[in-house]
Structure formats: structure tokens, C-alpha cells
């Protein structure tokens, strides 16, 4: 298994390099000038020219690319073109916020989604099934920022249960979790919708399989049939969708982070994009690519856990 993991990570290197090169080129092809963006439109021409030189933007593209790669090999992500602060420092500062939100949303998605999916499959065409189906259709259709504002209106402004602004006081676990509830619900409920659908259809497929009939014919209790036989086989597609969704959550949490005024990777990226902060953008992409590689690997390992036939040789 260790060899499998190492091999997967080695294969990830060319992927990462391709992502990096693409990002490096794309951000520079776009119109927009980081020096102008940093100094504002009132800045004098002398100052903009001086800053451009300081940012190294007067060097050739090849030279800039080499600087970037050499820095990367040394583990140095460079410093932000705009604030001059270390990029690695800023990314690692916001990364925990993004991971909290992603993990909490996935947790909400599993806790609500899997049981509801199973229940709707078992009680097909019942009121519960219709509720589950309407719920998941609504979840698939609602944009995160809209749901977020709705939750804020009800639970924060009307009921005053949860705070509106920020991600809590650093180091105070209670405050952090209190601030995490609504954003996690926002993304989690949307994820629930996907998980419900996937669980329901996987379960329906499996419930019509011969071995389920056999298990029932053997006289096994319904509970055992469900948990031991049906659910275990349904896990593979569910784990896949959870994995895919976790990846897209990391990327799509931008609007949620903005609505809830939380620091985060997505928000950092949008800010860097607006200001044409090339070094910051490149480095965020490196982190994104790495996260995706890791989550994919994690999901593949989970397959092995769910299905003993999957072996990593």
C-alpha cells in the first residue's frame, strides 16, 4: 500500500508541473497590471514604473518562469506582489479555515445524506421519498450564496442564534464552531442533495440484486441485510461522489466565504485574481492541485476499505 501511495505521488508531479505552467502563462496573458492595481489609478507614472521593476515584471517571461520554478524546488512560494508578505504564510494562514469548512460540509452531507438516501430507497414512492426527491432537487438548484443569505436572515438576524460576521476568534474553539455552523450548513445541505440522490439510486440498484434476495431468503433480519449486504456495496458510488464533491467544495466555497466574511483559500484566490497578484495566484494553484491529488488518493484508498476486492499492487 505504501508503494502504491508513493507511486501515485510520483505520478502527480508531471500533472502539477503542467498545471503550474498553464497557470503561469494564463495569468500573464490576461490584460491587467499588478503594479497599477496595487497603486491605484491615482498613482504617478514614476511610481508605477518603479514598482513594476521591483516586482520583476520587466524581466523576460522565461526568466520569470525560471525564478518561479527554482523557488518552488527550494520550497519558496515567493512573496505577494501586492502586500509583499510571504505567500506561503498567507496560504497556510487561511488553509485551516477552508479545510474546516470543507470537512464540516462533507460531514453534514454524510450525516443527512446517507440515512435520508437509504430511507427514500426503502420507502420508494412514499411521502418520505417524495420529500427526499424534492429536497435534493431544490438542493441541486439553489446557489450557495442565496442559501447562505437565507440562513443568515432566519438564524442570525431574526432568531439571533448565530453570528453574521467572520470566522470566530482565533484559538477559541467554541467561537470558531459557533461561526462554522451556518456556512457548513449552507454547503452541507447542498451536498446532502447530491448524496441523497446517489445513495438512493445505488441502494435501489442493489436491492434488486439476487444476493439481497438470497440474504432475505436465508431469513436474515432486514437490518442485517441492509447494513451488511446492501449498504456495503452501495458505498463505492457514494464514496466517489463524496470525494468529487469534497474537491469541488474546496474550489466552490468562494461565495460562501464571501457571504459569511470568512477568510479562506477561495477568497484569497479571487482577491489575487482581481489584483493580478501573479505569485499569489500561481501558489494557490499549486496548493489546489496538491489538495486534489491528495483527496483523489484518499478516495481511492477508501475504495479498498469499502470493497475488499480492490487491492493496491
Amino acid at each position, binding site marked *: 500500500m505504501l508503494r502504491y501511495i508513493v507511486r501515485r505521488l510520483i505520478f502527480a508531479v508531471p500533472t502539477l508541473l503542467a498545471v503550474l505552467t498553464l497557470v503561469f502563462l494564463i495569468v500573464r496573458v490576461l490584460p491587467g497590471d499588478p503594479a497599477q492595481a496595487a497603486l491605484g489609478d491615482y498613482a504617478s507614472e514614476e511610481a508605477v514604473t518603479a514598482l513594476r521593476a521591483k516586482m520583476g515584471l520587466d524581466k523576460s517571461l522565461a526568466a520569470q518562469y525560471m525564478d518561479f520554478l527554482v523557488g518552488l524546488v527550494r520550497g519558496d512560494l515567493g512573496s505577494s506582489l501586492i502586500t509583499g508578505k510571504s505567500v506561503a504564510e498567507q496560504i497556510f494562514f487561511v488553509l485551516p479555515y477552508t479545510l474546516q469548512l470543507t470537512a464540516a460540509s462533507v460531514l453534514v452531507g454524510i450525516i443527512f445524506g446517507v440515512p435520508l438516501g437509504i430511507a427514500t430507497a426503502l420507502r420508494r414512492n412514499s411521502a418520505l421519498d417524495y420529500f427526499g426527491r424534492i429536497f435534493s432537487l431544490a438542493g441541486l438548484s439553489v446557489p450557495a450564496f442565496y442559501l447562505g443569505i437565507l440562513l443568515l436572515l432566519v438564524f442570525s438576524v431574526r432568531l439571533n442564534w448565530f453570528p453574521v460576521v467572520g470566522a470566530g476568534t*482565533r484559538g477559541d474553539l467554541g467561537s470558531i464552531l459557533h461561526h462554522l455552523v451556518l456556512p457548513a450548513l449552507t454547503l452541507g445541505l447542498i451536498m446532502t442533495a447530491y448524496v441523497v440522490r446517489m445513495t438512493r439510486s445505488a441502494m435501489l440498484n442493489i436491492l434488486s440484486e439476487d444476493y439481497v434476495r438470497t440474504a432475505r431468503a436465508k431469513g436474515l433480519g432486514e437490518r442485517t441485510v441492509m447494513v451488511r449486504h446492501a449498504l456495503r456495496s452501495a458505498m463505492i458510488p457514494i464514496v466517489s461522489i463524496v470525494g468529487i464533491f469534497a474537491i469541488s467544495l474546496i474550489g466552490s466555497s468562494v461565495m460562501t466565504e464571501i*457571504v459569511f466574511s470568512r477568510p479562506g483559500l477561495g477568497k484569497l484566490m479571487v482577491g489575487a485574481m482581481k489584483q493580478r497578484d501573479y505569485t499569489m495566484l500561481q501558489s494557490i494553484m499549486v496548493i489546489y492541485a496538491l489538495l486534489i491529488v491528495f483527496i483523489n488518493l484518499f478516495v481511492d484508498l477508501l475504495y479498498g476499505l469499502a470493497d475488499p476486492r480492490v487491492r493496491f499492487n
Partner: protein
Amino acid sequence: MRKWLMLCALLSIIILAAACAAPADSGSDTASSSDTAAADGETSEGAVLRLGINAADLSSLDPHFASGTQDRTVVSMVFNGLVRYSPGDAPNIEPDLATAIPEPEATDDGKQVWTFELRQGVMCHAGPETEAYELTADDVVYSLQKSANPDRSAFAGEYDGMTVEKVDDYTVSITMDTPLSPVLFLPKIADYAGGFIVCSQAIEAVGDEAFKTHPVGTGPFMFESYTPQDRVVLTANPDYFRGAPKLAGVEGRYMPDISSRELGLRAGELDVIHGLDEAQWVDAISGEEGLAVDVFGVGEVATIYFNIDAEPFDKPEVRKAIAYALNRDAFLALFGPGIADNVYSPVPAQFMDGGLTKDDVDALDLEYAYDPEMARELLAEAGLADGFSFPVVSSEMNAYRKVYEAMQAQLAEVGIDMQVDVVDHSSMHSLIRDDANPVVVYVAFRPNADVYLTRFFHSDSIVVTGAKPDTNFSHYAAIDDLIDSARAETDEAAQIELWKEAQVQILEDMVAYPLMYQNQIYARSDKVDYGHPLNAIMNLNPQITEMTTIGQ
């Protein structure tokens, strides 16, 4: 089932680990105490004002680099200038770090000397590496020299030809190679842009980069902490030279989304927020109990520039036809009553000397009031009776996109097809400086008539090809003499006449169509009293000073 439980447990561990990984930066985070203080709704003594800033993060709190409103807002609380715009009442100027505004003296070699006496006992805040210390002439000299250095300031160009010298600890003399009128000189040393005075020992100790996120000045509030993408915390400076602030501090939250800021204000988690420039929004918030909205200047001026080197805009009839085809009042309706108002010259007469009022342009017959018939006639005269089409790019920001789209609809009425391509804000700024648009809409505030005229109409400022390419999108070069002689004129009345003359010329040639200005919108809890009127503010935000209070 056990495996699902394991997965859930694992995810919970990630959440907790991530929650704990956000380090408790001891001593720099006062949020918990201020949260409780404000939640208890206590008296103004000790209250922390919580401000919803319209930005995802700060760019720079070094005042000489602070160019966005989000940065100017914070900087104005931490720093002072030698003189300042009266709070809430620009462009009136009064002494700040200086004891009085001096009369300039002319020297024998044609230069001009301004001698400032400094207040005594003004204390620099304690910095990360420095103790609090008394501000002296050394700091003032250091600071203005920094402003003039393009490597250390975004506003360097404004300080060409200025020499700053220390006379004694409390006296500074500033020599201008070319004499300037007070209207042009005083803004350079006022509490705006390059005029802010930084504490030299503090910045020398930490370096320019670190200073951007830990500013040290002499203002009513001292920088305490900054959490990226989240907040900046300031505390009251008990030794402030105008007296200790009535607030305990200010907490600025970076919240780029208007809905979130609004909800924060409604939920009582914020006291002041940057609002939305729509009359409907203003009405809705004003109608809420306990909330109030302020609409104030200075307004950012939207002007339409024609590139006179690009066909068919090289023909004056075509430019005039477009001017007559546009209906100023229809543009105002985009924002609603009170939020925006018409302007009739590129320099807004409402906010500064040198602009033309409606009466002025009426008298000269240069209003270009809406007249589509006239527009069609002029187009026919130019041989374009069947109309023509041209492409432009617009920023995605409301202030631009709405104007371009309204313009598109109005021009279609006279047969002109303007194709609008919406791009992100930063792209637009680059593209229009590359002559991508034959017709440019630009929204900006500039501190005086000279800056407006120099940067938008002097031949040196022509985009791409000028000696110092800036924002002369019109490629106009016919009023250089007027601009230069106005700048050199030290008699204020004569100077204003020259500025007006320059604008009459611009309108006669119709190289730019002055459209409107847009006011600033801020909402607040009605318990907040800024302690000054809100007429016109250079920083575009209500100033929070030592007089600001939050009542019960």
C-alpha cells in the same frame, strides 16, 4: 456502518485540528473583549466602533501607498498631515500637525518658501520595535522625502520640485522651485495620499514592507492588529494631541459583499457599513428602525472621453452628435434621486474651484442638452447619416457597466451601434490605457482642477504616446498652455479664470462629455455620531475621529 462512523470521526478530527491550527495570536486579538463590549450596548465610553469595509482585504496601510478607499479609511485614523481637510467638510483646510497655515514667501531666485511651526508634544504611537516618542521636524522631513521617492510612494510625481528642510526641532521649511497657489500647494501636505506624516523611527526600525501591515503615526487611533482577509483592529490613542478619543477603538471588518454587510448591520454586529449606491437600497435601510443612511460627497465624476485620433471621432461633428444624443437625466435615473447629480464640466464645480456650473455653460451655449434631432443632423453633416458602429470594453463594476449600457441604448436611438464587451475591472484599466476604447467612460475623483486637467487633458498625459502616459484618453493637446499657466498662477482669482477657460475650450472642442458625479453611501446604527458634518470627504468614507461616539 462502522466505516461510516470512522469516516465521520475522521472528518470531525479534521475540523477540530483545522480550528486549532488557526493560531491564537496572543496579545494581538482583542475581538472577544470588543465583541462583548459592543453586545452589551454600553455607553460611548469604551465602545468599539465596528466598521464593515467594502473589500476582501487591505492592500497597504503605508499611507503613501494607500490608494483604495478601504486603505484610506484606516490610514486616516492612524496618521496626520501638516494641515488637514476639516473633518467632513473638504476642501476647507485647517492646521493639523502645524500650528498655523503660513503665508508663502517669494525668494530672490523666483522660488517660494513655506515655513511651518509644528505643535509641540505630539506623540508617535509605540511601534513593534520602537517606544512612543515625540514627533519632530525630522519626521516631517523624512516623511515628505519618502512621499517624493517613487520607490517608496505611489504619489511621487506630486512632489517634484519640492525641497523640505529642518530649521529646528519644531520648524520645517518647504521650498517650491515653482511658486504655487495655496489651492495647489496645501493638498500636497494635507492628510490625504502623500501628505500623511509617518513616524520615521518606527518605519526605519521595521522596514517599508512590514510598515504596510503595521502603520505607526500620530493619529487618534493606534494600530493594534491585522488578521488577513478578516479584520484590522485599532485602539484609542490616549495621548492624542486633540484629546483622547471618546471611542475605545475601531474594528474594521473586511466584507466585500453588500448583503453580508447589511445583515451584519441589521443583526447589530456592525455599527457602520459601506452601502450600495442605489436609491432603493438607501430608502430600504433608512426605513429600518435604529438605522440611518448618509449620502455625502465628494462625488466621483463620470466623464466620457472621445479619442480624437480615432475615426470617426476625429470629426468634431461626430463627437458633438454623441453629446447631443445623450440624456444626462436618464443616467441619473440609473442610480436614483440624491445619489448622483449632473456635472457640466470635467472639473466638478460642486466640489472645487475652477469648474463650470449649469448657468455658466448655459450662458456659453455649451450644455449640449439632450437633442436627438440635432444629433442626427450632425451625423448627416459628417457623412454618417446611416450611423456607424464601434466596440468598447467596460468594467464589470456597476459604476461603469450601468453607464456604458445606458449609453449603448441611447446611442442606438440615433443609429450608432456601440458594442460593449464587459471585462473585469483590472483588465479594463489596462485595456483603456492601451487605447482599446475609442470612447472611454472614466469615473474618478481628483483633489483639484489642476490634477483633473493635467492628467486627463495635458499632452504629456496622452495614453500610450505621451511623455508621461496617464489618463488623457482623448489624445487632446490643445490646452497645454492654459494648464501650465494656470498651475504657475499664484493669484487665486486669475488661476480660477484660467481653469474655466481651459474647460470652455474642452467643451467647445467636445473632447470630453461631463456626465455626472456619484455620491458616497454609508449606513450606520443611529447611535453612531461621527462628531462632524458629512458634506464632502476626500477619503470617500465618514471620518472616525476623536469626537466620534456611540450613544446608548
